[in-house]
């Protein structure tokens, strides 16, 4: 029989870390379905789903996802795994932040007008950052000179932070890659980690087959079933980038 093809839109982090390259062959072996994915920002991934151009979504912006399902664009949202965000900054740490409280760190940054690089691209990471400012009781410093809105992907934003001696927030996976690019001696270090607010939840959604007649809902279901299966969850837990675990499976939560 001919290979069946499932089209997925996903965020760049799952692709950039190599997780999907690692999972796809197992999925194929188990179900005979070929997974093809488009790695874009979460916002764009959701838009592609809206236009029925993909069958399934793998994204990490829980609030938007819930709204998306409510609006009838997506169905069967299931959570899969999470990793965490960290706040990084120059080795010299000019503002002197540290520890595990995000709110404290952000307040110090704001009061000292220390440079902070924001992705400013409506990505899952950016949305998370905005929530962190809000939860820390700080207005989004849109027009402040020290608040650098890059409108770019994570790696580029980290690079800009490094060039500008700025702090920034990143997912751990990207930071591990960044560290590796610098052969373990990057100009930026992790300064804040471990806060419960820093959890980064990934979920899978099928595109609503009632809106989009062409989508392969059956394949999408097979994919989300497989991803939440014990086998796949173990694979996710075993996935390592540069010897470090990146994602913690939590489909059962």
């Amino acid at each position: 029989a001919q290979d069946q093809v499932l089209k997925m839109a996903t965020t760049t982090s799952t692709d950039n870390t190599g997780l999907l390259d690692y999972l796809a062959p197992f999925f194929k072996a188990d179900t005979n379905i070929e997974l093809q994915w488009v790695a874009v920002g979460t916002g764009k991934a959701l838009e592609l789903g809206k236009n029925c151009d993909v069958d399934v979504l793998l994204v990490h912006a829980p609030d938007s996802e819930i709204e998306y399902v409510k609006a009838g664009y997506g169905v069967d949202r299931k959570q899969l795994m999470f990793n965490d965000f960290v706040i990084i900054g120059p080795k010299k740490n000019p503002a002197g932040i540290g520890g595990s409280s995000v709110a404290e760190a952000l307040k110090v940054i704001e009061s000292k007008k220390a440079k902070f690089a924001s992705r400013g691209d409506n990505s899952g990471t950016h949305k998370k950052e905005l929530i962190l400012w809000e939860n820390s009781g700080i207005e989004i410093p849109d027009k402040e000179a020290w608040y650098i809105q890059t409108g770019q992907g994570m790696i580029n934003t980290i690079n800009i932070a490094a060039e500008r001696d700025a702090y920034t927030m990143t997912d751990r996976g990207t930071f591990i890659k960044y560290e590796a690019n610098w052969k373990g001696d990057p100009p930026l270090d992790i300064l804040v980690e471990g806060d419960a607010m820093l959890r980064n939840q990934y979920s899978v959604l099928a595109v609503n087959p009632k809106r989009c007649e062409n989508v392969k809902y059956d394949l999408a279901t097979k994919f989300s079933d497989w991803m939440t299966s014990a086998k796949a969850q173990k694979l996710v837990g075993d996935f390592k980038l540069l010897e470090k675990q990146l994602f913690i499976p939590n489909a059962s939560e």
Partner: protein
Amino acid sequence: MGYISEGFISALHLLSSGNVETYSAVFTTLKASSLSMSGSLLIGIPLGFLLGYFEFPAKRHARAVVDTLLALPTVVVGLLVYAFISRRGPLGDFGLLFTVPGIAVAQMVLVIPIVISLTATAIEGLDRRLRLNLLTLGARGKQIALTSLSEARYAVLAAAVTAYGRAISEVGISMMIGGNIKWHTRTITTAIALETGKGQFAMGIALGLVLIFLAFAVNWALSVLKRKTD
């Protein structure tokens, strides 16, 4: 600086070791650019001839419009074409999204204005005596067009080379319409964007060198051809 030299070494390695991912991207790039170039030249050269050869009242304005289209950013072309070929767009049924022919169609939108504008300039630059001579020798319609283009062959070739450079090096369209799907629609440029996005600058440079190598092969072949028709 380090990653430039690193990139050089990686590029040699990628090509010599027959890296399958690289070769897949090379073939996708070649497929998309050959398709889009054939289409663009077939459509753009005749239109460019018409724009350059004939005098008509709105000529100046037509020219300004075509020249403006040279400034179409690839992302915008990507978006526009996406709006048409997305499932919910008017041409959704052809299933062009995330395919190589889809990339080619969108690249044609990008590249046809270049071919038209530079072909028109080439034709306008021809000796004024050519037109009268062709007419009085009895040439008509297509014959005039073909002979004029052959008289302006170097400038038309330059139009094609410029268009080719634009098509092969663009990334926005391949990204948006192709989707950068590994083994299927990943071109060299989207692969570069991916590697750069990952912070793998040396790999980005390496792939860039592969692309340049490809372009050089094409241009060198053309320059040999050009000498033959001299």
